[in-house]
């Protein structure tokens, strides 16, 4: 028996669904508009969603959703507790950026950060890596030395798994995970690293920080009504300031930082953008004696600095250096950076 309705009924049902969803998700829509790439759609969507949110909030129609969010937060601490007693592993609670209470002058911190640049690397990463990865993994010895892994998907994919295996293998180190895919320093409106980083590391005070970030930053951004076009002097100045602020934060407690630059990419246009970011970041970081910037192309690029996806290893075996997307590192590729990283660790903090 086919249980069917007429098109009129379907239109009524969808119209009703749309209206109720608009009422219940007014705040969610503001977050969505914030996350959009700088451009016409964002320019239109932001004022519309903000006005709509003000109306809904004024009528207290957003109360059910806020109540539901509160309940979720309460339950989540019960259902996914801090597990300091796990064997060899302890996790600090994952940072969940909250949607700010909707007020007229609301500050939004998105729940689902996602940047989209013309060659957005995080569109192409697998489900296995696009996670809110903001935990601390601890080995058991006392007192643990702390090493933080910081960055976007350039850290999360390939590099972090290799570092986690190799660093936690030796006792006496606490590995603090503070990386999140789909983020960058260019769009604090999407994910505000200076605000989120202290929450990600919690009480940890890492002596060493390994950072790989920037793949999502080759895009325009907007501050108030001013749009900064990628690569222009104004953009460079603004981005440089953001890198500088973040570098200050990373080194705040005397931490030494190894900042891994962006490798050459398969797509030449994207690669040129990454080269520009490398140049700019390197220049800014030269102001910080505690920060060492390394060029991954020394280890990963082919002859003449070309993109190299496969390479013969010392045993003559052909290994894959880069993921299918031509952006991220494979684990075998990330392993090529290990000697440089461990050399830096030994030079910088021999006791760790």
């Amino acid at each position: 028996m086919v249980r069917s309705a007429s098109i009129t009924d379907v239109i009524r049902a969808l119209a009703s669904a749309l209206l109720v969803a608009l009422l219940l998700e007014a705040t969610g829509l503001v977050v969505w508009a914030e996350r959009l790439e700088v451009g016409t759609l964002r320019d239109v969507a932001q004022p519309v969603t903000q006005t709509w949110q003000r109306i809904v909030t004024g009528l207290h129609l957003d109360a059910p959703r806020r109540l539901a969010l509160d309940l979720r937060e309460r339950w989540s601490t019960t259902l996914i507790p801090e597990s300091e007693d796990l064997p060899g592993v302890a996790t600090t609670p994952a940072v969940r950026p909250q949607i700010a209470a909707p007020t007229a002058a609301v500050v939004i911190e998105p729940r689902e950060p996602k940047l989209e640049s013309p060659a957005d690397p995080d569109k192409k990463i697998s489900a296995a890596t696009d996670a809110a990865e903001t935990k601390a993994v601890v080995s058991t010895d006392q007192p643990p030395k702390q090493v933080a892994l910081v960055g976007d998907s350039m850290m999360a994919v390939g590099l972090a798994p290799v570092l986690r295996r190799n660093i936690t293998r030796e006792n006496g180190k606490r590995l603090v995970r503070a990386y999140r895919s789909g983020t960058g320093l260019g769009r604090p409106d999407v994910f505000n690293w200076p605000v989120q980083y202290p929450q990600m590391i919690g009480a940890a005070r890492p002596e060493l920080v390994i950072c790989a970030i920037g793949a999502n930053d080759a895009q325009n951004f907007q501050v108030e009504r001013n749009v900064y076009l990628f690569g222009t002097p104004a953009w460079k100045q603004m981005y440089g300031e953001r890198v500088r602020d973040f570098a200050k934060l990373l080194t705040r407690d005397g931490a030494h930082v190894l900042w891994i630059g962006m490798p050459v990419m398969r797509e030449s246009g994207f690669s040129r953008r990454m080269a520009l970011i490398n140049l700019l970041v390197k220049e800014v970081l030269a102001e910080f004696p505690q920060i060492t910037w390394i060029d991954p192309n020394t280890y990963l690029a082919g002859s003449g600095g070309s993109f190299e996806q496969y390479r013969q290893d010392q045993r003559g075996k052909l290994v894959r250096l880069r993921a299918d997307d031509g952006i991220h590192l494979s684990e075998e590729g990330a392993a090529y950076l290990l000697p440089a990283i461990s050399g830096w660790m030994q030079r910088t903090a021999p006791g760790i």
Partner: protein
Amino acid sequence: MLFPTVEFALFFLLAFALAWGTVRHHVTHKRVLLVLSYFFYGFWDWHFLPLLFTISLYGWVAARGIERGKYKRRWLIGGIAACLLTLGWYKYLAFFLQNFLNLANSFGIELQVSVTSPILPLGISFMSFHAISLMIDVWRGKLERAPSLEDVLLYVAFFPQLIAGPILRASTFMPQLQKAPDPSRIETSRALLLIAIGLFKKVVIANSLATLMVDDVFANPQSFSASQVLLGIYGYAAQIYCDFSGYTDIAIGCALLLGYRFPDNFDNPYRSASPQEFWRRWHISLSTWLREYLFIPLGGSRQGEWLNVRNLFITMLLGGLWHGAAWNFVVWGFWHGMLLAVHRVWDNYWYANGNDEWRESDQWRYASRFLLFHAVCVGWIFFRAADLSQAFTVMQQLVAGSWHWDLAPGMLLCVLLGIGMHYLPSRVLLRAQLMGMRMPAVVLGASFAISLTVIEVLGPSAPAPFIYFQF
């Protein structure tokens, strides 16, 4: 444009309005759907739109050639070869080249070849299988005549199934394009229920399991106890089911709202008591495709036991490779081929020895389900692991790790939900559907919106792409 996003919701509302607005002019209606489907695909990367068109063109040209009757076989072989070569170029070239060079190197032959694999276009495996299905169905006379180019383009690109299926057989979908959908017979209640269930499976269960447990366990299994690794494996079993069947549910629901019917793709697969049954319930459209277009042409099961076993292995190995160009997928396919073959031999032995009565008992059925589920989980380790060595590390940790029952209740709940839903009586969903039908349309719509909000609130903060997008 992922299904659980505002962008897709807006796109779908536009598609719904345009599709039904033009339904009285059937040709225009199909053209509108075609343009929308190409827009949907181009939203990811417009560079691959010509590829989508080209693969469809292979199907159409070959189908016309087969229909004309002269050199039918050549047209069929040529068309299939064109599809497979295109698929191979994008998906398998680097893998085969890498392994060939390594093999040559192990024999002391030093070959120097610069290898760079092309970017893998989204959904290329699904497009290719659709085009091949069209050619074979025309060859077998299952379609009265070769369809028009526009119909072929729409069949391959129709947006609800374009990226991750279900794989529609030409002989079952093409007839739907012959007449306009009926605006008085839309299964609204079923469609909205499927979309809500699909979103719940994907956003709440699959995403939570992936981001809060499974990814961690598979990234660094040595950091976890054996019990946590075991939960991680069960978690992946639940995650991949909820991820993929959730996508399918949403695809079927969206198609229903547009007046089209897709076949079911999952039927409580973890309730299966044998490998054969599992493949009748898991990714049904792929297993049907492989049976119809690969296993049967190879000779199927009518050529004696050993040839049957050989055909099973070939089919499952290629089915494994279809999922990805990596050895872990080959091993996964081999594992399932072995399960099917061993069960076949075992089955024949028990039948021959008159153990039918015992086999029909409840105890045997439950024991079989338990064993089969765990055998499938072993396969999932290879499927999920980044490579073979990681898969073995997971297994090693499972055996050698310590056992502490220190499991997060939230994750246990997700695993139980993901696997337990297989045992939900079908009448529950039917009743929910009937209840939806009896509701006034406005109440039905409001209930749907409330369920979307609940799903959004319950889901984790970080989105995760659908697993099957990579295939």
